[in-house]
């Protein structure tokens, strides 16, 4: 499978502080790639480096097969970009904004644009500066989707939006992505926002990439484990690194396994807890995985 985005030891420094460090990951084509991390983790810096807004301090990135430093206008015609911080020309009406953007894209699809405008219920005559934050995001999304980009980059698109608007946007993105097999790269600090959206996920913490993989694999390898022991439970001293945040409560030990494989993990637990009376495994939501990882790294 080809990559829509790939980074190779990508690093960006601002004076002496390192915003992102040695990032290497790939975004497969036609995937919806969730780029996760807490606030200040370096998500926006990564995206701006990919978009050639920032120049990488070292390393490299390719976007749609081209070095990100050499993103030409022709290549930008294939990329849609929506960011929570983007400064839109507030003096433009929605209609004029859409018209203005249209002239930059030979592949602009007026029918798709119209249907999105209707779907998002955008007030055409109103100026962008008079719109609510959610409406502005919708307008930005329409102007970034209507030319059917191969790659759609969304930087915290749902931040601060009410749940109704967020759901509308998610539904819109899912529908379009399913129809056209576009690659969507979406960053967020809130897993719940994109849990139902993404197919792949990467997790960034303090500028360093913790993992990057397909969501199903991730959910496959993470399990919440509960071991019931005879008598009071104790955490063994030789604790595997892949087992996160062990907690004891009476005869019960709870922890998260990040390398779950049914037979191998069961055997390993039996070896660690020879006096166990029972073991249960529970699949985890993306949010639970995120929280476990975040807590384990504190």
């Amino acid at each position, binding site marked *: 499978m080809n990559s829509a985005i790939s980074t190779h030891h990508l690093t960006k420094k601002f004076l002496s502080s390192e915003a992102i460090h040695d990032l290497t990951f790939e975004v497969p084509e036609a995937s919806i790639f969730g780029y996760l991390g807490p606030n200040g983790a370096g998500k926006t810096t990564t995206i*701006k480096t990919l*978009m050639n*807004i*920032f*120049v990488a301090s070292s390393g490299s990135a390719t976007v749609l097969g081209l070095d990100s430093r050499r993103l030409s*206008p*022709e*290549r*930008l*015609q294939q*990329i849609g*970009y929506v*960011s929570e*911080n*983007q*400064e*839109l*020309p507030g*003096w433009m009406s929605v209609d*004029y904004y859409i018209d*203005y*953007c249209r*002239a*930059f*894209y030979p592949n602009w699809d007026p029918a798709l644009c119209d249907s999105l405008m209707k779907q998002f219920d955008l007030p055409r005559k109103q100026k962008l500066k008079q719109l609510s934050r959610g409406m502005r995001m919708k307008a930005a999304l329409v102007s970034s989707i209507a030319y059917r980009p191969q790659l759609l980059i969304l930087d915290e698109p749902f931040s601060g939006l009410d749940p109704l608007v967020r759901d509308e946007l998610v539904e819109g993105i899912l529908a379009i992505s399913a129809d056209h097999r576009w690659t969507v790269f979406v960053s967020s600090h809130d897993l719940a926002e994109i849990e139902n959206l993404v197919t792949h996920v990467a997790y960034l913490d303090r500028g360093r990439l913790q993992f990057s993989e397909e969501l199903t694999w991730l959910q496959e390898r993470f399990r919440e484990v509960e071991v019931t022991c005879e008598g009071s439970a104790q955490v063994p001293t030789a604790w595997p690194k892949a087992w996160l945040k062990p907690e004891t409560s009476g005869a019960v030990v709870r922890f998260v396994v990040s390398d779950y494989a049914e037979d191998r993990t069961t055997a390993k637990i039996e070896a660690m807890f020879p006096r166990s009376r029972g073991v249960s495994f529970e699949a985890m939501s993306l949010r639970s995985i995120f929280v476990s990882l975040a807590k384990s790294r504190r």
Partner: protein
Amino acid sequence: MNQIVHIFHKDCRRLWSTIAAVLVFTFLHGYGDATLSPGGGVAVGLSPFAIVFILISLSWLILPVLLFLLVVSVIQEESLVGSDKFWLTRPYDRARLFLGKLLFVVLWAFLPMLLHDVCLIRHFGFSLSSAFGLLLWKYAQFGFFLLVAATVAVLSASFARAVLLAVIAIVVAALTFFIVLQKADGPPVGSWTTTYEMLAVLVVAAVGALCVIAFQYRFRITSVAAMIGVAAILVCALLARFWPPSLTAYLLRKNESPLLRSIQILPDASLNDLARPRDLPNPTTQPPAAYYPFRASGLSDDVGVDLVGSTAHLDSPDRKSASLYLAAVVRFQPPAGRLGQFANIGSPDQLVSFAPSNPEGYNRLKNTDGMLSGNLVLQAFRSAVARMPVPAPRSRQDLAVGSRRCKVESFLRGPTLVLSFDCVELEPGNTSQFQVHLLHDNQEIKGPTTGNSGQSSSAGGWPAFLSPIVRTYSTSEFELPGVGLAGELPSGLEMVIFAEQSLGASVRTFRVEHFRPSEFTSQAWEQRGLHAPQ
């Protein structure tokens, strides 16, 4: 091309109010230049006329500010500072973006100004071909102003920040020039070097500004672009500091007119019947000067020459040296009678005064038989004269003298005849002197008793690029004995107007083989005999 027009159209739509304001004030400025005499009216109250009058009066300030605002705004529409601008992730072609902005500036800043200039030039009866060279220079200045505005615009994200940056840039430039130039201790040579030196500094500054703009459009690294700007300021200051006077002399020689080329100023010890030199500018603080006779040759009937500067060295046989400079401007002109081609009687033979830069070193050499050599800086002028009857009171008459077109009006205030001249000429206004004399039955009437040189609409003022013309208003008053209260002018009254038009500058070398300063003091010349200055 489509993208250029598309961006241009968007900018017009966005900045229509600023465009409209620029057009209105360009019109008002032109209207004021064409119709109102400088200092010729006072607005009272807040009538519509008064408001328009006030706006016209302030247009010299408001129009440049609006032009600055226009250029800054159009560039900051797609701001090059910051990382959250919407356009950064859109498929803008940077070259087309730049061309779109250029088209906007040409259409809404240059073109209205050009139209304004053409209308004014034609309104005052000048031909466009005669104004072409002046317009080129004017638009070079105008372009430089817009370039500065564009430079601060590419380095800032809002108009307020652009203004702040412009102020900072001016302070940095002033400090840099002050620091670099304060150690410049060359001999004072007058203002003659400023033209080429200034031109060179402006060209370097313009190249620096273009580098900043190009760098920002290409790389968008504001700190580096600002450093390029600071480096350009430093280069300008160093250029001004180390600009070789010999290069100015070479350029002046290369570009001088054939008329000027034929003029020679040569030292001649054998000259006699010389006029007493005019007083030195500050005889109490000025060190004693030495005077040497010079003769001007090659002067045509209506052409004279002013010696405005000099760099000279007095070298003794024992290899000691002293620097000298010209102590006072000296005028050479063909011998002419009163009210001939020149306003004053003059002569091609004159005493030229040299003052020492370092009096102590000079005093050691004043009894030495040394060699005086150096450069003389000349400014040639053509004297034009117009003679015509004085117009009847309250009637206006047209008059052309030299490069000026004037309207002259007379009126009587008791026994005083007041002549008022409302004159225009093309920028930068090369009429250096304008004198009025009055004749009654071919006899000159003493005067004028009072008069003023008037105020110019833009000559020498800021910013000179706003108008293609210099408008000067002046009055001259003469006492007319025998004029009663009837208010009629005596017959046979004529006025003679002299206008001197600059023909450019040049540099000549000279050498006096045997020069003993003590033999050429003012006292020594008084003993030899001098006649009174005219």
